[in-house]
């Protein structure tokens, strides 16, 4: 039922971007992929979605994604890319409705509005997509992604959200709101893999994390176990201090004061 990637290598142009990465994610959990810029997070994500040519094997629930037709994958996993463009003047509701395109899940006409309400965009249906702010566009795309795999557990097993920096252009309140939506999806049995930049948010919300460095996975495990001064300082190449959140027993991250000078 899980996503398993074995020995994934990706070459883009002249550069080897991933060097034989193994990656697992389980339904019912949020698995975060973190790491510095250029460490291969997005490339790993794009291998998991089948978007970039790779060597190795990616399986969703035991099925090799290279052998699955696009429409079948679309019923299994929905993908939020990092940056998107929209070619024609569609309205918000029309963009969200594209998630229903292949009709693999419910075709309930109220679904786009419900998904928009989930991401805090109730009432935005009739607005032109291109006139939304960057953060609003990101949340509208998330609504489209949610609509595509609306039931966290479908008829043939759990579904997956594959999200590349889902909260990168959101303010702190909307970051929490969106992470809440994602957590709820995982709690209801769906699987979530998310590329994240904000280590504190990752510590709060992720069940598992894979820390990448230089096209390899440097450490994997629960945030409490792998977010340590030593690992993070090594991976990011700057001195980082990890403390314990006073409210909940999760780590939080601060730059070492020496680096502020």
């Amino acid at each position: 039922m899980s996503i398993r990637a074995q020995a994934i290598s990706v070459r883009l142009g002249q550069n080897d971007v991933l060097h034989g990465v193994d990656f697992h994610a389980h339904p019912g959990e949020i698995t975060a992929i973190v790491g510095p810029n250029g460490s291969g997070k997005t490339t790993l994500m794009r291998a998991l979605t089948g978007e970039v040519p790779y060597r190795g094997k990616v399986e969703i629930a035991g099925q090799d994604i290279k052998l699955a037709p696009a429409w079948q994958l679309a019923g299994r996993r929905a993908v939020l890319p990092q940056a998107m463009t929209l070619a024609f003047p569609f309205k918000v509701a029309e963009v969200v409705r594209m998630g229903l395109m292949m009709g693999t899940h419910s075709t309930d006409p109220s679904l786009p509005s419900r998904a928009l309400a989930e991401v805090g965009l109730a009432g935005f249906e009739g607005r032109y997509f291109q006139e939304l702010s960057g953060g609003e566009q990101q949340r509208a795309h998330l609504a489209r992604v949610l609509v595509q795999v609306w039931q966290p557990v479908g008829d043939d097993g759990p579904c997956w959200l594959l999200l590349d920096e889902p909260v990168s252009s959101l303010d702190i309140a909307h970051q929490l709101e969106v992470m809440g939506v994602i957590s709820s999806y995982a709690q209801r049995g769906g699987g979530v893999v998310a590329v994240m930049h904000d280590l504190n948010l990752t510590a709060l919300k992720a069940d598992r994390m894979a820390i990448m460095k230089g096209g390899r996975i440097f450490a994997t495990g629960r945030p409490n176990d792998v977010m340590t001064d030593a690992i993070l300082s090594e991976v990011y190449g700057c001195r980082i201090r990890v403390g314990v959140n006073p409210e909940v027993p999760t780590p939080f991250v601060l730059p070492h004061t020496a680096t502020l000078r």
Partner: protein
Amino acid sequence: MAIPANEPLVDRRQRARRTHWVLSFVLLAVAMLSLTTGATGMTLFATLSKVLAGEPLTQLEKIVFWDIRGPRLVLGLLVGASLAVSGAVMQGIFRNPLADPGLIGVGAGAGLGAITAIVLGGFLPAVVAGLIGYWLVPIAAFFGGWVSTFILYRVSTRHGRTSVATMLLAGIALGALAGAVSGILIYLADDNQLRDLTFWGLGSLAGATWSKVLVAGPMIGIAMVAALFLGRGLNGLSLGEAAAFHLGVNVQRLKNGAVMTVAAATGGAVAVAGGIGFIGIIVPHLLRLATGPDHETLLINAALLGAIFLLLADLIARVIVAPAELPIGIVTAVIGAPVFLWILLRRRGLVDL
């Protein structure tokens, strides 16, 4: 959360579906008008009442309605629909409202195919010529259109993103090249072929015959039916190739299908009517303004409005200097060029050419 300036949510899909019916009725009316208007001054009503009264039609009336206006009407309908639909499909695949087969060299490529067939068709082995027969010119036009669309896409699209500047510039270059090769072929042509070429190059529905309808009809018909299956995929593609794939679209198959459809529609239209410009730009653009960019409804409405538009342009071309007539390309260009400029001006801030 910011309070959205909520404009009333109009479901444009409903409006677009109602538009199917409105346009169908308008098309019917325009078709009647086209049948009853012409240099001879006969009217459909007079003829109909004659038929209903059981009087036999005169030989002249039979010729005018059956041999002249009939095929012209059907050909106009086919060509108008195919030009508008190939414009809409092309814009969907290039993700840009300025892509039009006539403007970016696909029409010229189809034209080169047609000219090659007219000039060099005689050199084909008799077996092949007998097999293809009348369809030689439209099939050659199809290949010309297919090759130029394919080259254009390969040149202007990298990693699923189309560069508008490259597309327009490559289109100009391709068009010039096709024009030059066409010129060489025209130079080589003998007198008989020159006569054919001149008639063909006028870009007109004059000289429409049932055999021309038979020549272009099947190819355009197949292209129109194929276009119906492209709508969903083109909607997904408006988010980019990767997102379309994530939504479940087989992108490679969609692109191949779209390019073949454009080539067949443009090739069929160019083979029988020469180069008629701007319909592929104006019609989809007006429809997007009225009912939104959803390709599932846009493609059907484009076929209907394209047919209406071309029949009206043909009507103007026939009436304005009667009993002579203008090439229809002049009429569509006089209306279309300003509309094209208007689109450019409106979008100047949005599109980085």
